[in-house]
């Protein structure tokens, strides 16, 4: 077996330029490697420049495809209930917790004679999401409390937590009177008791 010829000294710049032909690597001087290759037959670009353009375009296209794949996971339309909805006239509700929108819209409509935050009579909309880990509590009318079946958090009808692991009261949604006299609930705006937001005029509908 013939001894292997000594490996030619390879210029790192040539490697970076993805030149694969050993003959070209040996023949070219570093000065030629920096600019467009003089011995290249291409009329517009040298091979190295062309490869740079090609790799850049390929990388950009791959990045765009990746971004498009990510965007694909976020549909433009989702089949979920609207965040704003009308729930009828104030006269439709008696005092206490009303569960008719719990399943469909995810709120309890509560009519109270004296609210803990606003010290007036009227309505508030409590979100049915437990502030511990996000389960839906049950309303126990005999005990006048919301009780979460997952880990046992308990809330007064005001929404304030008093037992179990829940760290803060239930959240209230924006509740206002619409032009046609109906109550409008807007879940996209939430009010948190511990931030003093229950004092906000739109967190409570006086009636």
């Amino acid at each position, binding site marked *: 077996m013939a001894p292997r010829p000594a490996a030619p000294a390879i210029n790192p710049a040539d490697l970076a330029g993805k030149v694969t032909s050993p003959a070209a690597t040996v023949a070219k001087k570093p000065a030629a490697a920096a600019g467009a290759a003089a011995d290249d037959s291409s009329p517009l670009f040298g091979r190295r420049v062309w490869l740079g353009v090609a790799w850049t375009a390929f990388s950009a296209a791959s990045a765009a495809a990746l971004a498009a794949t990510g965007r694909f996971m*976020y549909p433009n339309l*989702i089949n979920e209930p609207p965040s704003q909805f009308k729930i009828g006239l104030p006269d439709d509700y008696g005092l206490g917790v009303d569960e008719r929108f719990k399943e469909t819209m995810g709120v309890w409509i509560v009519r109270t004679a004296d609210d803990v935050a606003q010290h007036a009579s009227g309505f508030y909309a409590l979100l049915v999401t437990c502030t511990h880990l996000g389960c839906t509590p049950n309303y126990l009318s005999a005990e006048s409390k919301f009780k979460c079946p997952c880990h046992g958090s308990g809330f007064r009808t005001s929404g304030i937590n008093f037992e179990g692991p829940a760290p803060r009261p239930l959240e209230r949604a924006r509740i206002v009177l619409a032009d046609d006299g109906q109550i409008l609930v807007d879940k996209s705006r939430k009010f948190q008791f511990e931030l003093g937001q229950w004092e906000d005029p739109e967190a409570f509908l006086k009636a």
Partner: protein
Amino acid sequence: MAVETKTVQPQEPALTRFWNSLTETQVWKSVFRHNRPDNDRNRVLVMLSNVFLHMHPVRIRKSGVKLRYTWCMGGLSFFLFLVLTFTGLLLMFYYRPTLEYAYSDIVGLREHVPLGIMREMHRWGAHAMVITVWLHMFRVFMTGSYKPPREFNWSVGVVMLVLTLLLSFTGYLLPWDQLAIWAITVGSNMARATPFLGYEGPGAQLLALGDVKLVHAGSDVRFALLGGTFVGEGALLRFYVLHCVGLPLGIAVLMAVHFWRVRKDGGISGPM
């Protein structure tokens, strides 16, 4: 008068003759390109010329087959993965991942399908695989088998542990009963707190254009997981696809790397 003598060759048993003629056929020779594994060279060729067997090393240390050293937990994990793949494939013939059918299909798998234990085998197999994977990791740790040159394979194993847990987590939702829905609600709420990517996570508020939040309940990483802002039909379908296709594909590729690396890193580690 000359006595006629006749040499009688001892007749080979019928089975041997059949075997010999079978192994002489072109079909046999096209499949098995080695002679009978009755010497070292042929035994090596058996391993090298079979795509399934070549994952396994030709020779292993005596200690490598010692049950009290390996506990066979890696092998058992792989076996359970095969069981789960097979039973899971069978379940897919009956299960539809929609709000309307998911729960009743699961009940039907027990009540209306012959061998109603198929779903239980999948479920218990899944529990067992989580246990064996943890025990495998424990064994590898206690025997110091994560040390060089095996650090990379340990890292591959850690990723596979996470994939095993994610397979378990995604499969948990599919029965679509109360336990499933609320367990996934609680579990996926953790994704809200992902740094930058979850809308309640640290740094999420920084990603905003003026007053417009870029990361909100409809655009964060939890949404990508659930296909909605709560555990609903989108979550069921996405978890189904991840459970049946995405995650098994990923773990299968990593398993191939893992087994191959065991061999390349010097085989199963021996007692120190």
